[in-house]
């Protein structure tokens, strides 16, 4: 899945939407819905809730189009709305619900042509990785989730979380160090003598 925006198309679609073209807004939704759903799912951990969150975010975005400069990137602005909507839902439902579904429990099967044993080993490996991500402190988990699991750039991550770019960089660095410590085996000591 490409995570690069299509600025020229977005501009035309926003301009068309503002002049009353419903189909244009539908196309704008389709251009960004997949990544918006991933961002929402990362926070709410429930597919139905993610869909509802993103629908509401697109409704709010439409209502604010009058304020938007069509030449500014649409995706980061939209994803910040998605994230805020997701946070509001989590807050209303209570924090615990959001993490009842661990990413590690959601690992899909691999290539069915491979042996069951190798598939099981691989699935366990990925569960381990996602489990480690779930155990990160919340702010590091959000940054790693958006950067590596959803696939946003550093700048898009900063815009979505509404934090400075430097903050994204530093949280990413600390999170990766933590993940390496947990997931990568220590180097064997060199034999001496």
């Amino acid at each position, binding site marked *: 899945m490409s995570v690069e925006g299509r600025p020229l198309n977005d501009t035309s679609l926003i301009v068309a939407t503002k002049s009353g073209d419903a189909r244009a807004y539908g196309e704008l939704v389709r251009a960004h819905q997949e990544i918006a759903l991933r961002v929402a799912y990362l926070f709410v951990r429930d597919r139905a809730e993610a869909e509802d969150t993103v*629908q509401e975010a697109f409704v709010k975005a439409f209502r604010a189009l009058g304020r938007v400069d069509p030449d500014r990137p649409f995706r980061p602005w939209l994803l910040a*709305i998605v994230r805020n909507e997701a946070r509001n839902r989590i807050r209303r439902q209570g924090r615990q619900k959001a993490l009842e579904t661990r990413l590690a429990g959601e*690992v899909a099967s691999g290539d069915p042509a491979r042996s069951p044993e190798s598939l099981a080993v691989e699935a366990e490996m990925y569960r381990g990785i996602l489990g480690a991500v779930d155990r990160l402190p919340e702010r590091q988990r959000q940054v790693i989730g958006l950067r590596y699991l959803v696939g946003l750039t550093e700048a898009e991550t900063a815009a979505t979380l*509404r934090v400075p770019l430097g903050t994204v960089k530093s949280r990413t660095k600390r999170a990766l160090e933590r993940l390496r410590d947990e997931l*990568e085996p220590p180097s064997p000591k060199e034999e001496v003598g």
Partner: protein
Amino acid sequence: MTPIDGLLREASERIAWPRGVDIAPAVLGRLDRGADSSRRPAMAWVGLAALAVVLILAIPPAREAIADLLGVAGIHIELGTSEPANAGFDLSLGEEMTKEQAESESGLVINAPADLPPPEAIYVSNSPVDGELTMVWPPSPATPEIADSGVGLLITQFRATGVGNYLKRATPETRVVVVSVFGVDGYWMEGAPHVLVFEDSDGVARQELSRLAGNVLIWEANGVTYRVESSLDLRSALAIAESMATD
């Protein structure tokens, strides 16, 4: 790409993300339900026609043809008279509430400047502290827009103390000036976005990043920290602060 980076990206493809979902019809449906009543009969007709062809629409090549039949393709359709979103809705300020809801939720009494109209929107968040309340005003001649934010003025209230203890250490790139607000030390910051470090009402150190690239005036009164962010100069920001109640 280091090994851990690659593993994370591979793991991403194994997550059971929502896939193959087209929410565009649902979004347009929600917007249409915001249409005024005079337009409902026409949209109802479209709804019945859509039901009749729902199976055919599922076949991609037929979709454009059906859209033409329904008069959607290339035709300007108004998406209803949806109320525009309020200022600040896209700034991750929390959940928008009425004044009464916000006071109940936050446990704070809203303290708005007497010299300005009521805020356009009020938000309550639980980050970085529970019950953080933010009032937002749109751009106006009295409160020019802050950068490209769509906001003219943000005033935040939350229960916290000790702002001054950490402030200078936390803002190396921002000019910080100590000022007097209601006879106590307040802090004026202008320039780059900053980090604000303080103690919440449980004495736990918290930090908050500034949301916009505006100038900020902060002070503390009766256990509540106030934060006024705008593109105004110090004198105008102090005038706003001094029109706020202190009880």
